[in-house]
């Protein structure tokens, strides 16, 4: 489903070149619940950004559903993200002026998915129920706790029925108990929705839910 072949990424910071990824190759199958581990600066975020078509590698191939996305233009990448990829961010990145329901609804407008109002409402309310926020439907992000915001972000990532959900350190801003709840929820949805999850963390304690773990160190896979 996702294949990275010898992916390299170098950033230039002033006069210094930072090798974020040094020839990473890996494969992720449909339905996997993949954890990318590594310390800060190991290249986890860069790897997820490249898989999520938010960033381009300097070298190598990124194949998603048989398409090498390296050659796609900006708009095609945007369309691919809207239709096939869901994102969960470390700092939630909810739209502050929209309530829980509207934040989850938002990607459907971006995707311009043709769906009846009733079906849309059913889908959103079901997801809200699954992430346990039924009582908070009309709350704005600043009226929610960190864990609740991340649940909204999870529901938002799933609403377009993507094939892959990418979560870059989704538990980094949460306490340990909430972090475990969030990863459990992601795992549960991975089972129920049959969506591939790829998440990054440097927290060893939440890796137990992963079906496979890839360890990054200095931009290269350690395993």
């Amino acid at each position, binding site marked *: 489903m996702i294949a990275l072949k010898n992916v390299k990424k170098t950033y230039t910071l002033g006069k210094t070149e930072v090798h974020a990824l040094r020839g990473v190759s890996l494969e992720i199958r449909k339905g996997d619940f993949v954890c990318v581990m590594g310390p800060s600066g190991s290249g986890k975020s860069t790897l997820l950004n490249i898989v999520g078509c*938010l960033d381009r590698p300097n070298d190598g191939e990124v194949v998603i559903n048989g398409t090498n996305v390296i050659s796609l233009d900006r708009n095609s990448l945007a*369309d691919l993200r*809207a239709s096939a990829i869901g*994102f969960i961010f470390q*700092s939630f*990145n909810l739209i502050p002026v929209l309530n829980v329901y509207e934040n989850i609804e938002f990607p459907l*407008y*971006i995707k311009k998915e043709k769906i009846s*109002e009733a079906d849309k409402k059913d889908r959103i309310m079901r997801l809200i129920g699954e992430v346990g926020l039924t009582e908070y439907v009309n709350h704005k992000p600043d009226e929610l706790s960190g864990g609740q915001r991340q649940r909204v972000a999870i529901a938002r990532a799933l609403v377009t029925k993507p094939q892959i959900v990418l979560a870059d350190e989704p538990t980094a801003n949460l306490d340990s108990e909430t972090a475990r709840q969030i990863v459990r929820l992601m795992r549960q949805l991975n089972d129920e929705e049959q969506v591939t999850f790829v998440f990054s963390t440097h927290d060893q304690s939440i890796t137990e839910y992963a079906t496979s773990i890839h360890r990054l160190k200095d931009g290269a896979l350690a395993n």
Partner: protein
Amino acid sequence: MQWVQHILKLSLRNIRRHPVKNVLTGVMILLSSLAFFFSASLSKNSELGWRGFLGKTFLGHYHVTAYAGLDRDYSFSSYYLPDAYIPDELTRYLDENKVEYARRVKLGAVVYNRDKGEFENTLCTVIGMDMDAELKKLTNMDIVQGKYDPSNPNGALIWKEYADFLKLKVGDEITVFLRDVDNGNYPYTFTVTGIYFQKEGSNIQDKAYLRIFPLVLVPYRQLTTLLGVEPDRATEIAIWDFDERHSSAVRSIAKKHKMEFMYGEEIFAIIFGTVDFLHFLGGFLGVIILTILVVSTLNINMISFFERQKEIGTIIAIGGRARWVVTLLVSELVTFSTVAVIISIVIYLGLSAAMSMGVDFGESSVLFAGNRFYMGLVGKSVLPTYVTIVVTMLVSALYPIYLSTRINPVDTFREGEL
């Protein structure tokens, strides 16, 4: 459609989210709008004031003259009869639509100064007019000596200052030299039956050089006969009907036949350039404010761009195209401008209501023909003002919008919380 509704909803909420920024921008829009509305009101007051005043003079409410191409010099008519007369199409239109008008023959002349035995400084304009119909319309004209005598076809009314200059009194004869239809220059003698005084506005006498209008009024029928002009032909038509429904049609017919069409205030504008000046003043003020608006809102929009990088980055990350971001930001600007202009209109109407008694501009009231100034909202100024504001706002937001479309989400997610 839902997509549009969603964009609008998001726009409105984002506008409410940044109250300080929007109040600052809103104040700039308010000032610009008020400047535009006010200058439009100044022009309108001037236009109506002068239309009202000049509508009681020989100019009529508006008029059409065959003397086109004379650089619109209303101080003196052509010394020759025109090549073409008022077209039948125009009189037919006026008759069919029951528009009240009067036919005239008007041309320049010189008068023999019997007192001095010379022609120096005796240029005047002779108007052959239907005295019975028109004298009652000329409410700013007082016959101070003698009277109009309908039984005397050779009777003439002359302007008091002209009579004084020529040392003429009621009962004297006045000889004018006119060019007839064959271009022959002949003397025609009339008897002065009345001397009139042209009333002028409160402080207009000092400002307006109406003294350069020595007029000799004679009966229309008599003048056409003397000059050999066919019956019912006219070199000028004065329209006394204040119903403005027909003015644009009359203007159009006049233009088609290469005639001059003039409203009273247009003549005033030509003489004094007042309306042009008011337009210039309003436009200049508006441009200054719009420039300030562009600069200040550009800065505000740049700050807003930096504040909203993460939000826009999120939209791009979850699949929003650059077009989506542009639509959202433009929608916010247009929505905001619309609301701001509506508020400006309400405030302007409030100010108008508070000043419903009008304002006396003292010496400057010559701009309004001596009338008070009423700060009404001119309907036709609203749309241009709105469009100008929206375009200005868009111009000031072009660069921030461009930057927004170039945002790399990866850069915006590095740290901090939305």
